[in-house]
């Protein structure tokens, strides 16, 4: 996967990464585990309670997408540093059918399945940086970053 849309730190500075963990997402129990792992790292990154809740909610939405629409995959999550700021980066990867029209998929209320259509559009609003790469047959990768304030 290219890092083409990785925008760097909050001020465009250099980003360092630590504490990388990878978790499979193949069952509903894994979605719950993803929430717990992201919660733990958000606490480590010293996020406020509201920001913790936002990033955990976003991770829950994206993990469910990975499971339900992507047919399973994984999340790679780490703590990122830029200058004095810390944040959490999570990358959700599946090798499912992919998303033919990304703009459409990012529209509120649009869903290919039985959901509410808020998974992608809603989680984008809950994080600071959101990047998605997908093409039909090639799976989907979503990368989100939330910086502590």
């Amino acid at each position, binding site marked *: 996967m290219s890092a083409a849309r990785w925008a760097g730190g909050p001020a465009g500075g250099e980003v360092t990464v630590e504490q990388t963990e990878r978790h499979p997402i193949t069952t*509903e*129990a894994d*979605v*719950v585990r993803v*929430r*717990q792992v992201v*919660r733990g790292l958000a606490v480590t990154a010293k996020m406020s*309670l*509201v920001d*913790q*809740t*936002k990033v*955990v*909610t976003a991770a*829950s*939405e994206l993990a*469910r997408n990975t499971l339900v629409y992507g047919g399973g995959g994984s999340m790679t999550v780490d703590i990122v540093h830029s200058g004095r700021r810390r944040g959490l980066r999570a990358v959700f990867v599946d090798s499912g059918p992919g998303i033919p029209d990304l703009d459409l998929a990012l529209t*509120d209320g649009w869903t290919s399945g039985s*959901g*509410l259509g*808020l*998974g992608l*559009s*809603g*989680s984008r*609003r*809950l994080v600071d940086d959101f990047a998605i790469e997908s093409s039909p047959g090639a799976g989907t990768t979503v990368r989100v970053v939330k910086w502590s304030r």
Partner: protein
Amino acid sequence: MDRIPILKMGNLLLVSIQVDLQDQLALALQDDLSERIVQTGARGVLIDISALEIVDSFIGRMLSTIASLSRLLDAETVVVGMRPAVAITLVELGLHMPGVRTALTLEHGLALLGAEVRVRLPEDESFDDLDADLTEAADPGASPGQAVSGRAPTGRPAPAEGAWTG
């Protein structure tokens, strides 16, 4: 599979979600609740989510569905105890929960339902007995005009519905 317990309290059903909800568990709760509403003739459902650290779109939809289902089955649903951070996140997520009524605490939720559906034990005269006792105790013959002040015309204690009429 685990189930979330549903407690019957008079003509209300009480659910307190204390676990990190897996999707299947949420769906099972929907089914169980609608069955219990019909089985018990419950008029109100209280769902306590104060232990939930997040409400994502799936859980939000579950709450909406429960509210719609229970309304069709002649019961009102009130969701109580939402954490402030959860509320902030739901707004930003863009999740609307049509038909879901909320109250800050279980007590407020009870008052909200009590004002609408009258918390009473079914086929149980204990409330009437209680009222009768109260009426006798408060009305020993002297100054009946004062004794009934603060009471509804029926002689029943005035329902605490002022602030919770919805």
